[in-house]
């Protein structure tokens, strides 16, 4: 029975709640709150890449919207649409910045921790012995910015541990490292 919050007999010594390397709170930006923790932050290049994607979408929406409203109601309506799209773009790019700052991961001795999300916060803990495969993917926009996404798969479809926005060579290194650890600790289902 280790302290408050335990739901049964304790498995043994676990780090005290709040102690590094555990996030001080799920989702509360663990990095800003405690810059001393060894959490790895995500490159701001991911935010840039995602903003580029948002800009492309905004241009498309603006073009269609302005075209339609100008034809139907006159140029002043086109101007209104433009303002709305610009405001939306500003908001989205602000959210993207916050989202990327909320992401991070931490390699521990036996497992990998990934945090993400602002509105819907999430912490995923994947033991290395449970990893079935590690994917590295990079879309065209990602490649332009030299970043890649590392995804861990376990036998559960719901594990969903994704680390986006890693510099390409760091992603490859992480994949190899994780694969090696996974092989070492592999356990049957």
């Amino acid at each position: 029975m280790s302290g408050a919050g335990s739901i049964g007999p304790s498995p043994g010594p676990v780090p005290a709640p709040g102690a590094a390397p555990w996030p001080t709170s799920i989702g509360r930006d663990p990095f800003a709150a405690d810059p001393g923790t060894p959490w790895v932050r995500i490159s701001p290049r991911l935010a840039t890449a995602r903003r580029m994607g948002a800009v492309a979408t905004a241009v498309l929406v603006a073009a269609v919207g302005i075209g339609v409203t100008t034809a139907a109601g006159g140029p002043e309506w086109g101007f209104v649409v433009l303002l709305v799209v610009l405001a939306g773009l500003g908001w989205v790019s602000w959210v993207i910045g916050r989202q990327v700052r909320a992401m991070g991961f931490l390699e521990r001795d036996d497992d990998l921790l990934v945090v993400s999300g602002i509105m819907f916060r999430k912490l995923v803990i994947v033991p290395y012995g449970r990893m079935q495969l590690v994917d590295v993917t990079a879309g065209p926009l990602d490649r332009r910015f030299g970043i890649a996404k590392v995804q861990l798969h376990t036998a559960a479809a719901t594990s969903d541990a994704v680390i986006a926005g890693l510099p390409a060579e760091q992603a490859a290194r992480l994949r190899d490292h994780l694969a090696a650890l996974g092989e070492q600790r592999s356990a049957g289902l």
Partner: protein
Amino acid sequence: MTADQPAGEFVPTPARRTNPITAFVKAGQVVPVLLFFVFTNGIVNATSGAQRPLLGAGGVAVVVVFMAVQYVSWTRFTFWFDADGDLRLTSGILQVSQRRVQLSRLQSVDVTQPLLARIFGLAEVRPEVAGAERRSLVIGYLTLDDAHALRAELLARAAGVRTGEPGAAAPIAPENVLLSVPTAVVLESSLLSPAALVAFVVIVVMVVVAVVSGNPLATVPIFVAVVAPLAGAVAPFLTFFGFTVADSPDGLRLRFGLTSHQLQTVPPGRVQAVRIEAPVLWRHRGWVRVVVNVAGSPDANEAKDHPRVLLPAGPIDVAHMLVQRVLPGVVIESMPLIPAPRRARWRAPLQWRRLATGSDARAFVTRHGWLVPTWDAVPHARVQSVRVSQGPWQRRLGLSTVHLDSTPGPIKPMAAQRSADEARVMAQEQVEWGRRARLAAPPQRWMRPPPPAVGGDAS
């Protein structure tokens, strides 16, 4: 791949085919579909008398073409066991594919008999393997005896039993019937379902409308509304008719089905999580349902015709006995459960009183549900990953949810609406329990002595 399996240990078997009338039976399955299509679309009514023979000829042509395709695909389908003792399958008409099924990862073997195949005394064998296979493997049709022999052979090889010289059939393991669910219980439990309740209400409305209006034809529009719930009420009866559970060295054998028949085999240690449900409609009888997660292809786990049910309806003692069989040491009934904090009622107003969670050295148990009180249990050794999530409303209340990820299936174990601080400790403790459980994991080939501990790489 398997470290404990030197290559060439087994003698490969010659390639085998499925039964030659497979194509005929598979083509026969399109006939009802075709008839349904023709009649529901009013094609019969739209055609004049002279065109009807043409329509019939068209239908026959479709069946013949379908049969030809099935025949060619039958000639291309072969299966055998390779030198590593694994199952190989080749199939495909235009694009030939060869699949290798690693039997050390075998999760279950089912022998199913859809109605039409059953009439011809045929069956298909469905080995379920954990891992990347998206679609389930189906070997069919075989005669029922051949299907049982193949099932026994798959299980024997998966267990690591050497069958000696090639061609020698693996003996079918003896069994010991644990329980069978009486027909009356299957029937009553099917009738005490939400679908049956809806059907009953609709029928009452129909009768009232017919009596009040004095015109039975007025009920025709309502009649359509009764079809789906009625089918929903009858389906569990047809599926679980004659449900029998038997114990054998292969694992648990489940037999059930009135029109189509199934034999499912779940080898020891392959159950990933269990759920006990006690629907409120069954409360006066004290019946519960037991469902399991077995690792396998997502397809098989989502499929309605492929239920992962250990007990369709029965007393709670029987349920606990079955849970003990599939997950030894996991006790749901005596696990002390800690309720969720009172403020959880703002997030889960209906079920908050039931939300409770407990854990011991062996397993994690969680209780939830409103009209269907439910207990989920997952042994620490079977947890794939641990997640903690928190939505905006939960954050306002200082709550979070801890998920223990299991393989795809009906059970998604989670401790919902715990206080955020407690959730953090809980996640950490569950991860630690999981680590310890993995270190003590039993061998994959369950009939073999465990390999000598060298290096610690036991895959």
